[in-house]
C-alpha cells in the first residue's frame, strides 16, 4: 500500500474501489477454512487448559509457528477461527512477543544472549561467529534478527535469556547451550546443516547436574511445551 497523498485522484479512486467491505477481517468462519487437524487439535487443547479463552492466544500462536515455521497470515487466521477471535487480536499478541515471528525466518532459530553477563564474556564475538557461520547479516542479527539466504538459520542477538551461569550462551531451537566459544558456533551450524544434534556436550538440558538425562543418551528430552523441538 502507498500513502494516499502520493496517489493521483484516479489512483485514489481505484484504491477505494479495491477496498471491499468483505476485506475487513472479522472472526473467520471455521467452516470456510481448511485448518490442519493437528493444528486445530493443539489449539483446542490449549483452549481447554485455561478458564479464560484468550489465555490460549500464545500457545495457539506457538502452535501456528511450529506448524508453518512462522505465524503466517493464513495460520493466524486459522488460529483465530478455531479460537473465535479476530486475527487482528492474535496479531496484536504475536507482534508484541519477540519469540513469535510474523515474517518468515530461518528454519533453525539461534538466539544469542547479549545481556550483561554474556556480553562481558564475549557475546558480541559469539553472535558474530554464528552470523558468519550461518551466513546471516551481523547488523540485522543484532537488531531484529537475520535469516541466512538459504533459509536454514535465523540468528538474533537477544536480551537476557536468564542463563548467566553458562555465559556466554545461546538458545538453539529452544534449547540452551553454553558456555560457548566462536568455534562452538561453527560446529553447531555444521551439525545443524548435517541434520545432527549440535553441541551435545554443552546442552544445558542434557547435563546431569541440570536434571537432564545421562549425556550418553541420544534421545532428546521434550521441551517445556511438551513437544519435541
Amino acid at each position, binding site marked *: 500500500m502507498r500513502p494516499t497523498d502520493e496517489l493521483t485522484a484516479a489512483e485514489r479512486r481505484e484504491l477505494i474501489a479495491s477496498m471491499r467491505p468483505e476485506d*475487513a*477481517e472479522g472472526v473467520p468462519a471455521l*467452516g470456510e477454512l481448511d485448518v490442519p487437524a493437528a493444528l486445530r487439535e493443539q489449539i483446542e487443547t490449549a483452549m481447554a487448559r485455561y478458564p479464560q479463552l484468550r489465555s490460549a492466544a500464545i500457545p495457539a500462536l506457538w502452535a501456528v509457528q511450529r506448524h508453518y515455521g512462522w505465524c503466517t497470515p493464513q495460520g493466524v487466521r486459522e488460529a483465530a477461527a478455531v479460537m473465535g*477471535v479476530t486475527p487482528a*487480536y492474535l496479531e496484536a499478541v504475536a507482534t508484541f512477543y519477540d519469540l513469535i515471528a510474523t515474517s518468515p525466518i530461518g528454519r533453525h532459530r539461534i538466539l544469542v544472549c547479549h545481556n550483561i553477563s554474556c556480553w562481558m564474556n564475549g557475546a558480541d564475538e559469539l553472535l558474530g561467529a554464528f552470523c558468519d557461520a550461518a551466513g546471516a547479516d551481523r547488523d540485522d542479527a543484532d537488531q531484529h534478527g537475520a535469516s541466512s539466504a538459504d533459509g536454514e538459520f535465523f540468528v538474533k542477538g537477544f536480551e537476557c535469556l536468564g542463563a548467566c551461569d553458562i555465559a556466554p550462551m545461546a538458545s538453539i531451537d529452544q534449547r540452551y547451550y553454553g558456555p560457548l566459544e566462536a568455534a562452538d558456533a561453527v560446529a553447531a551450524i555444521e551439525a545443524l546443516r548435517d541434520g545432527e544434534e549440535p553441541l551435545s556436550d554443552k546442552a544445558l538440558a542434557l547435563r546431569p547436574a541440570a536434571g537432564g538425562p545421562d549425556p550418553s543418551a541420544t534421545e532428546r528430552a521434550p521441551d517445556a511445551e511438551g513437544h519435541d523441538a
Partner: protein
Amino acid sequence: MSAERSKVTLVVDGVEVTADDGAMLVDAAKEGDVEIPVFCYEPKLGGPVGACRMCLVEIEGIPKLQTACSTPVRDGMVVYTRTDRVIESQSAVVEFLLVNHPLDCPVCDKGGECPLQDIAMGWGPGRSRMTEPKRHFRKPMPLSPLVRIDRERCILCYRCVRFSQDVAEDEQLQLLERGASSHVGTFDDHPYIAPFHGNIIELCPVGALTAEAYRFRARPWDIEDSGSVCTLCPSQCNVMFTVRDEHVQRVLARDNDDVDAGWLCDKGRFGFQMITSEERIVEPRVGGSRAGWEAALDAVAERLRSAGERTAAIVGGQTSNEEGYLIQRLLRGALGSANITSVDELEAGLARRLAAPELGAAVPDLDAAESILVVGTDPLNSIPILDLRIRRAIRQGRARLVVASERPTALDGGAEETARYAPGDAAGFLAALAAELGNRRQAGAGTPGRAADEVPGDGSDWAEGARRIAGELRPGKTVIVYGERLGRGPGGDSALASLLECARALDLATAGAGVIGVPEGANGRGLREVGCLPGAGPGFAEAPAGRGLDRIKQGLLDGELDAVVLVHADPIRNLPDGPGWAEALRRARTVIAVSAFDDASTETADIVFPAESYAEKEGTVTHPDGRLQRLRPAVPHPGNVHPIWQVLAELGARLGHETGIGSVPEAVATIAAEVPFYAGITPEEIGGRGVRWQERPAASAVAELAAVPPEQRTSRTNLDRDDSGTLTADRLRLGTYPALWADEITDRNVALRFLAPAQTVELAPSDGERLGLASGDEVEVRSNGTGVRARVALNERMRPGAVFLIEATAAENANALPAELNVEVIKP
C-alpha cells in the same frame, strides 16, 4: 437514578466542590470550574484506564500524584491541580507525548480543534529537549475508504482501539508491536470497515485519524455548528452538522445518552453528501418538465380536486410529524379520503395498544434491564445505534440477551439463547412464546430458570424455542425490542397480538420494563401518532376506515383509486411486490411525488415536488421510544426547494381547507392540540435533548391507551397457514430483510457506495450441500416465474429450509419477487 446518589464535598484548588459520590475527580473538578487535562479519559468508552498520565494531581494525604480520571472522589478530599509538582509532571507528560509528534499543525486537519494542541499550549513546557529523530511511518494510509490514518501524529492513547474492542466489539483495530514500534493497525493491513468505525475519527484527540470526506475542507474558524437530529434511520441520533459556506461538511455526534450514548453509525456520519448532490431534484416538475411553484400547486390542486376521495397517500419514514399531520389532514379534511398510510402501517387497534405509555420502554431502560428480548429484527440493520446500546448492557453484566428471529442477527454472539423460526412463522412462534410465558405465570413460575420439562408444551419446534427463550426472561424487568415488520403479512396482526400477550405475561407495564418497536422508517412512530394510519386519526382518534398499503395498490390496479401522493416514499423499491407497485403506479391516473431524487416511483409521477433534506428541515420527529425531537435547519434550501409543510398547507388552502398553519411552531401547536398525549408540547419544551411524551403529565390523559381489553388468545388456528415450525428439505422458504447498506442513502452518497451489498442469498450449509451450492456461487432465486440473481453465502447460523435475500438493493431487489413463501434456488 443519579439524583438518588449521595453527594460528597471536596476542595479543589481551594474551592469547595460538591459532587456525586463515586464520580471521578476529573469530572468533580469541573463543578468547581477547574479543568484537569486528559487524553485517554473518555467515559463513553467505559471505565477509565489511567494510561496517558496527563491528569495527575496532588491529593492531600497521598504521597504520590494520582490520576484524576481514575480516582473516585471522597468526602473531605483536598486536591491541588496547579502545584509545582503537578505542573512539573504535566509538562513532562506533554513533552513526552510530543517526543514523536510531528507538530505539523499548520497542515493538520485537527489544528484549531485539537486536544493535543490545546493541552500543549495550556499545560506544556513550551519547548522540547528532544533532538533525536522522530518516529517515521508512511502516511497518510487509508484505514478504510472513509478514514485515513497518520501514524506519526498518533500519541497512542488507545481510544480508537478501545472503541473497536469495547464498544463496537469488532476487534479489528489493534495496537500492534511494542514499545517504540507500537502503532495502531489491523490484521495484515486489511481495511477496518465496520458499521460504526467513523466514531474513531471523532474520538481521536490528535489528527491521526481523519475523515476522507473532511480532509482539507475547513478550519474550525471557518465553520458553524448546527445541532439537529439525523433522520436517516429510526435511531434518530442527535447530530451536530459542521457547516461551512452553507454546506454541510461533516456530521458529529451531539451526545445524548437518552438516545445515542454519543455514537453515530457510518450512515449517519458520512451520509451527508447527498444533501449537496447534483442529482437532487430542486424544482417542481409537472409532466416531466420544470415548473414554477404556482403552476405545480395549481396542477396538483386541480387533479386532487377531481380525484377527491379516490385519492390515497403513502408517507415515507423521513417525513416529519408536521408534514405527516398536514398530509393526513389534506386527505381527510380537504379530500374526504381515509386512504392515508405510512410504510410503518399497523392495524389501528394494535398500534394504539402498542403505544400505551406504561408499556413503552425508554432507550436507557435497556441499560438497567435484567433481560432483553430482541425479536423479529436485527438492530444492526434496522436501528444500528441500539446494537451498540444492547452490547453495552450485556457487557456491563446486568442484562441477559435473548434473540428470536428468522435470520441470524449481529447480536447472536452475545445472546444467552437464540431461537430461529422460519420466515413467515413469527406469529406461530410468538403465540407459542405467549402461551409459554402465560403458563409460567399461572404456575406461579414467575421465577426464571425452571427446568424446561416442568412446563407443559406441545413438543413442537416452536414450543421448544419458546421454552428456551421464556426461561431467560425476567418478569417486570425485561425490555423487548421488536421489529414492527412482525406486523406485516397475513399473520402480522396475530403476531403483534401475541407480542402484547407476552408483554402482559411478563408484567412489562412497569417502570424500567416495556417494549420498543423498531419501525422501518425513521419517523415511523411519529407518523402513526399524528394520524398517518388508515382508520386512526391524530392521537389514534377514531377515524373512518381507509385503505392500507395493499389495498391502495389493489385500488390503483382496479381503477378504484385515481390519485396517489407519495411523500418521501418509493414503494417500487422499498415495499414488497415492487413489480405490483410499478404496475399500480403506472395505472394510476395521477401520481404526485415528493422526493429529493429521481427513482423508480418518481418516474411514474405526473407531478414531482422537490423534497427537503434532513439538514434543511424544521420540525419534529418521534423516536421509537416516544421521545419527540426537534429538527433544526442547518443549511438553506437549494434551488427552488420549499419546506414541505408549507407546500402541504398551501395545497390544503387551494382545495378550500384552510389549516391556519403558517409556521412550524403553529403546526406543532396544532398537533399538540389534536394529539391528546402530545398536549401542550412546544418546540421550546422539546429543546435540544427531546422529551418523551410518556414522561409528561399529558400522558396520563390517555388512560384509554393503556386500558387494553384482554385480547382473545391467539391460537394456531387463527393463522393463515397451519404448518408446523419444521421445514421439510424439498421446500425452501424465502425471507427478506433490510440490510444496513441496501438503501437509497448508500446509493446517493458517493463515499458510501462501496458498502452497497450485491444481492446475496443466504442458506444453511446443509441446504447448500443438498443443492450442490458453495459460498460465492452465482444462482437465481426463482419464485412463480420471476427470478433474482444472487451470490450464495452459506451461513452456519441459518435455519435449514430458509433462504434470505436483501430488500431494496439497487439491482436484483428481493422486493421484485412476488410475495410467495416458497422459492427455488437454481444454478444457471
